[in-house]
């Protein structure tokens, strides 16, 4: 039963992921796609958390944290690029 619930949760998350993909495909702006990517990353964290339960292993704890970090870094980098046309400013603004 417990496992079934976990799998149901995974399937729900899969649908959620699919929606993110849909938004990324639909756009219409780059910002929309970044949002989709950001959300996608967050949903993946949930996915992996459930995997940890299912596989009964804590081996992916670091993965979860890293994913959290990267979703942030990635979104910020893309958004900043979008805003300023550069990722890294040469000089103070």
């Amino acid at each position, binding site marked *: 039963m417990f496992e079934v619930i976990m799998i149901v949760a995974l399937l729900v998350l899969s649908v959620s992921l699919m929606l993110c993909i849909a938004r990324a495909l639909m756009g219409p702006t780059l910002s929309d796609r970044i949002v989709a990517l950001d959300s996608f990353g967050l949903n993946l964290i949930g996915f992996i958390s459930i995997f940890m339960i299912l*596989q009964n*292993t*804590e*081996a*992916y704890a670091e993965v979860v944290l890293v994913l959290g970090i990267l979703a942030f870094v990635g979104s910020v980098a893309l958004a900043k690029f979008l805003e300023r046309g550069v990722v890294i400013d040469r000089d103070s603004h």
Partner: protein
Amino acid sequence: MELLMSVVVGVFFMVGTYLLMTRSLIRVVIGINLLSHATHLLLLTMAGLKTGAPPLLNRGETEFSDPLPQALILTAIVISFGITAFTLVLAYRTYKVNKTDDLDQLRGSHDE
């Protein structure tokens, strides 16, 4: 699962190859990236996907997944990263210098 993964790999190869045969620089680069994903998945699949624990020995498990392909893939991922990064830059500069990203316009003449 191996069957399913093999099919996935095949689809990756299909799309990757298709993208390589398009005119746009970026599509080619994307195609290359897809192919590298595909090979990583294939390496993993070919070692057999029978479920064991992650290959960490200090967790009290006895059955493990094959660690070797994982190490190979890790190596392959890093290599693909290096190559892809370089490809990107190359495509970027090619575009900037040749003023086009259309590979048909990057044919060059026969008389060079």
